[in-house]
């Protein structure tokens, strides 16, 4: 026996709808995990297929590196990046990063779209032309 049962049940249905929203939204569909492509011609030419830092480090810290690079280049005019294992790189998104990772669509966007991150790199930089 409930008093004002109708209103309470409507309220409860709204509550359950909200708290199970992700389940209702997905409906049990499998979601493909992102596969960023690292098979560009430039990478295949490399003997030692290594990014500027280790893969694990790049995975979690690339945004920090890019942010630091921007500050160093734009504000202080410093362009030389020394990696942890002593190699030197030009601090440049377009000339260093995108030289190997030449496809924004197949590399950057894969993961960024998956986790809905919208970096503002391309507000200033010119996004590379995608050859379909």
């Amino acid at each position, binding site marked *: *026996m*409930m*008093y*004002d*049962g109708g209103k*309470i049940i409507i*309220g*409860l249905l709204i*509550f*359950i709808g909200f*708290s*199970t*929203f*992700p*389940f209702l*939204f*997905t409906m*049990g*569909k*499998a*979601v493909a*995990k*992102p596969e960023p492509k690292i098979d560009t011609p430039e990478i295949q030419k490399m003997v030692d297929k290594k990014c500027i830092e280790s893969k*694990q480090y790049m*995975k*979690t*810290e690339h*945004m*920090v590196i*890019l*942010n630091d690079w921007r500050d160093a280049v734009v504000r202080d005019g410093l362009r030389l990046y020394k990696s942890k294992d002593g190699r030197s790189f030009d601090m440049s998104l377009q000339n260093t990063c995108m030289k190997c990772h030449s496809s924004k669509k197949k590399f950057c966007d894969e*993961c960024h*779209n*998956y*986790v*809905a991150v*919208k970096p*503002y790199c391309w507000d200033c930089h010119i996004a590379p032309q995608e050859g379909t």
Partner: protein
Amino acid sequence: MGILFSFAVVIAIVLIVFAGVRGAGLNYLFAIIIPYLALLTFIIGVTYRVFNWGRSAVPFRVPTTGGQQFTLPWIKSNKLDNPHTSYGVIGRMILEVLLFRSLFRNTKAELHDGPRLVYGSEKLLWLAAIAFHYSFLVILLRHLRFFTVPVPTPIQFLEFVDSFFQVGAPLVYITNFVIVIALLFLLYRRLGMPQIKYISLPSDYFPLFLILAIVLSGIYMRYFDKVDIVGVKQITMGLVSFRPTIPDGIGIIFYIHLTLVCTLFAYFPFSKLVHMAGVFLSPTRNLANNNRMQRHVNPWDYPIKVRSYDDYENEFREKMKKAGIPVEKE
């Protein structure tokens, strides 16, 4: 006592996760089983509490009255603080739920030299409460980006607004700061003000410590000890599509954050936090003050067989006449 106990419980949860994941390798337990159980406990628990409240009779209108009651049409009544219509009640509920109006009206009492008792307005608590609740809501909604593919536009927009100042990388959220400051103030109230401390219980401290731990572990995970966020989303999407997977190499801080959140969800229905549902069922808020206009019958009343004097006289009229007792009808 209560402070230390609540703090120790939060620390213990963190240590258990640490031992469970790092030591015993119970990733499946902490990333899959506990989240499902916590969500079930949350939904069933809150529903049960609401059903229970719904079963309690409200025999009489008991609204708190914060203004002039409706009497005669030419006397101005306060429609929101003393509503007598359903529309007034809806308005009052909207103000209560969205703007915490009753907390806004909160006053404080202070004893000054003299001794002199002084009442004053107390808006800081209201401000901290609003800041905390809305930050929490924004943070909760923002997290939907881990639970949906594709992420709905409103969620992305919310995140855009929250990171509007574009500071640092990953972008700093405004709510990060707001919720921490609000929580620290709410904690300071209970720790630093003797009167509030006197009436505080472990059930007051624990949610504060727990939520603070959730917030700090989340901030730490986003900006300092970063985890593989794509791997994290694979876990969360596995959960919501009932295809659980756990990629390797997810940092321990993720498991700590997740388990603290699960603790909050599971603890919710048993604690004062159910005021989330309770505010909608508060008889002092959601009833119209119309006792003078409408008759409210107590639902507990069982039907009483009433016998009128007419009835009585009809049965005994002849005998009454014979005995010489006066009757109303001949």
